[in-house]
């Protein structure tokens, strides 16, 4: 019989997928709402112009078409981001370019960050740092870490995620997440890593260090 811990472990990946999908669907709903209101407004203005037997102002039409075009491009970017996330599960292990992966994480977490009034800057100290690992599990681990840090840091925190090579080794990569709350807060460390993340660290031979006093954590990938 499955224990609660086993069930939590089994559901961790799907739960992560659910959270990302929910965030994306929320954004898409906003895009659709804007397109609907813009189209409705154009229709209202056309109706009024017709009722008054006046021409519809071309600048009003262009304003509406440009607004809708902006939203379509926004939706396209959202869907492409979701697609990149969806394909992160294609392989158990693959070459992952850490800078790209962290930028994808930042895009996927945009709504989560905005909800806390927080900012996340992705910095790369070295270009093209590539590791052989599970891309999906990496995103899952970092997403959890980000959630835990945001919960601990409070609203308005500034976060910086830095990608670097591991000079002591010929391969591998180093990810460092630093956070800065807007107001002095008691140094309460994020509740991370949990049992699921500890399991991931062991399975994937990653090393992890959390320093709540200095407000950073480091993930070392082989």
């Amino acid at each position, binding site marked *: 019989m499955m224990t609660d811990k086993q069930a939590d472990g089994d559901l961790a990946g799907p739960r992560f997928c659910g959270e990302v999908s*929910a965030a994306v*669907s*929320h*954004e898409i*709903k*906003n895009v*659709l*709402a*804007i*397109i*609907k*209101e*813009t189209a*409705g*407004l154009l229709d*209202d*203005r056309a109706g*009024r112009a017709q009722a008054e037997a006046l021409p519809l102002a071309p600048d009003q039409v262009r304003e509406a078409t440009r*607004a809708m075009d*902006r*939203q379509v491009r926004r939706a396209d970017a959202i869907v492409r981001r979701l697609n990149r996330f969806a394909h992160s599960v294609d392989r158990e292990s693959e070459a992952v370019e850490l800078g790209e992966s962290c930028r994808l994480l930042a895009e996927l977490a945009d709504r989560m960050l*905005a*909800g*806390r*009034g927080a900012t996340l800057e992705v910095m790369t100290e070295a270009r093209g740092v590539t590791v052989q690992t599970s891309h999906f599990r990496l995103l899952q681990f970092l997403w959890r870490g980000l959630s835990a840090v945001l919960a601990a840091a409070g*609203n308005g925190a500034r976060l910086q995620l830095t990608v670097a090579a591991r000079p002591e080794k010929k391969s591998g990569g180093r990810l460092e997440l630093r956070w800065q709350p807007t107001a002095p807060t008691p140094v309460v460390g994020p509740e991370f890593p949990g049992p699921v993340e500890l399991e991931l660290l062991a399975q994937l031979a990653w090393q992890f260090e959390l320093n709540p006093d200095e407000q950073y954590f480091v993930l070392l990938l082989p």
Partner: protein
Amino acid sequence: MRILLVDDEEELVSALAERLQLRGLAADWTTSGEQALELARNQAYDVAVIDLKMPGMGGIELKKKLAAAFPALRFIFMSGHGSLSTFTSGIGEIGSEDYFLLKPVDISLLIDRLRELAK
């Protein structure tokens, strides 16, 4: 009836305000809870239409602050969020699912709800 619309999506909330104005309703809009509180201090509103999930001050927090400061103010929530917990907490705060509208909002339905609340 004077309406205050609050949503962090400026293109959405400004278009919605103009559509209400074209239908003879007085509507002001803003994109943050802080600005909404400022507007409400300077202008009397009958109904506030608030997006549930906004960066910084969320819809429920804004509703509580407005309700405390302006007891006669009525509320409608809008949400693009599909989760049961969001729906439940929104309904719990607003008191009726009639005043919890899912995005994209149908303007005729919104106007019906506004008129109900204004009675």
